[in-house]
């Protein structure tokens, strides 16, 4: 009965991860703005009626609603309307303005673009759409709430959904890797690095080194497999730091900046408000000590008797 009561209180009393939610909103807003502004010069080629886009919203929305949404693909102007809404939504998420409505319009506009040209998307886009759906449950930025409200409960359900989604991503990916021969042999990263599509030319020679290739292959696989346990253990914060470094590496060596931005945002989302406060205090303490060093040396100098 005690675990049940504890869970009930955790869900019902106070909203969790408020700082994490804000960081995630910033990460998703930044990712989408980066995507839109870099792809804007190619917008009509990618999504316009005479471009390479061929997809439809019908498989998800059904023929009736899908036909209405597909009208956005019939002229270049309408594509720019959708992109404008996406820019506004992403910008509002970034600055924390009207975040629930911003999440909604971002989700709709990004979904339309995503469906039009599936070939351009990567895992980061799929994850962004899923996370935006869960973010609809979250309390808006700076919302007033009182303990025990139903909206607080829904917020915490949204928080859990985002955490579970991240666990699914890492765990299933780790399990799939563990099933692969090249991953077991520690050479998968060598093969990935030889493909020009995935890796920057500078990394081709790097992954011929046996030490680097083995660590780079086993590292992500072990990280992903242990992720569900690590984030509820004492190594949570170092594990998150490791994940951030992993995604910085992916951004630099695999040119997946927008994917890495979302993943880093999700990693930082896992840190609880109390942990952020502790980190902040420790940071202040360390900074304080650093600042005091010159003072201390000054006082030491003042104690030196005049010669």
């Amino acid at each position, binding site marked *: 009965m005690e675990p049940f009561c504890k869970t009930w209180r955790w*869900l*019902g009393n106070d909203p969790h991860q408020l700082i994490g939610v804000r960081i995630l909103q910033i990460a998703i807003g930044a990712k989408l703005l980066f*995507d839109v502004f*870099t*792809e804007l*010069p*190619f917008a*009509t*080629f990618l999504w*316009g009626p*005479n*471009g*390479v886009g*061929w997809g439809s919203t019908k498989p*998800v929305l059904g023929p009736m609603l899908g036909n209405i949404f597909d009208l956005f693909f019939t002229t270049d102007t309408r594509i720019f309307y959708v992109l404008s809404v996406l820019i506004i939504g992403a910008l509002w998420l970034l600055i924390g303005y009207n975040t629930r409505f911003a999440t909604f319009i971002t989700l709709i506009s990004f979904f339309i673009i995503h469906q039009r*040209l599936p*070939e*351009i*998307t*990567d*895992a980061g886009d*799929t*994850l962004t759409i*899923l996370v935006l*759906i869960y973010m609809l449950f979250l309390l808006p930025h700076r919302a007033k709430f009182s303990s025990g409200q*139903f909206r607080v*409960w829904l917020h915490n*359900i949204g928080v859990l*959904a985002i955490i*579970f*989604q991240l666990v*699914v991503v890492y765990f*299933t*990916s780790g*399990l*799939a*890797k563990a*099933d*692969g*021969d*090249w*991953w077991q042999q520690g050479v*998968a990263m*060598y*093969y*990935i690095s*030889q*493909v*020009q*599509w*995935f890796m*920057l*030319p500078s990394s081709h020679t790097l992954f*011929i080194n*046996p030490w680097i290739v083995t660590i780079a292959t086993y590292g992500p696989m072990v990280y992903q497999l242990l992720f569900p346990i690590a984030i509820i253990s004492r190594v949570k914060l170092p594990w998150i730091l490791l994940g951030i470094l992993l995604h910085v590496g992916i*951004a*630099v060596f695999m*040119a997946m*900046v*927008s994917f890495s931005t979302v993943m880093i945002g999700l990693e930082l989302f896992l840190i609880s408000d109390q942990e952020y406060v502790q980190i902040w205090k420790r940071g202040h303490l360390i900074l304080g000590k650093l600042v005091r060093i010159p003072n201390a040396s000054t006082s030491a100098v003042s104690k030196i008797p005049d010669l």
Partner: protein
Amino acid sequence: MRQIRVSFSWKGKNVPKTIGVWVMNIIRVMTVLWLVAFFTLTLLYTLPTTPIESTLEPFLDATIGTYFDQGWDLFAPGPVDTDYALLVRPLSNDEFKVAGKGLPNNGWYDISSPVWAKQGNIFSAYPRLSNVITQATLSYDNQPSQEPLKLMVKFASAFCKDIGKSNVSYIALMIRERHSVPWPEGKAPKPPAIKTKFVGIYRMDRSVENINLYQI
């Protein structure tokens, strides 16, 4: 007229309020059940094939697969170890007439490699543009179908317009597979194995938007 207020009470408690609290609690429990059910289905859908997943496949496809489609294999179990490049040969009307006897060996353009080479600028759209052309080429190479073919023809037509060959009538397409060399085990790597696969000759799509990517 005086209003008569009737209050229901049971064991000294306000009945409508108690019912309201119970209804809210039931809704709260239902949200938790939804969360558990949703992520159980998601896990079953995304995990490698299991007997449960095989049994529930139609249901999983109709729910998670349709509305929350996802797959997190990410370079696993066997990562792609081949570069699939799309090659284009613009053909004039005269060249097209004699193409049945054999295509010319010269004048082929690799339209994938220039986009891959530009990926070095990580703060740009090039990595995602290279997804478009490479995903279509890879998809057609593995299982030929209409959508990737149309995309390849449009991309190749946009390339021809970009390099100033808007007057060509036809384009010949070919896929070049460059297979990674097996792990060298301390030795110097051998040169990669290269294979080409002819796709076909198609009418150039003049209506396609300009890509403004290949201008020299």
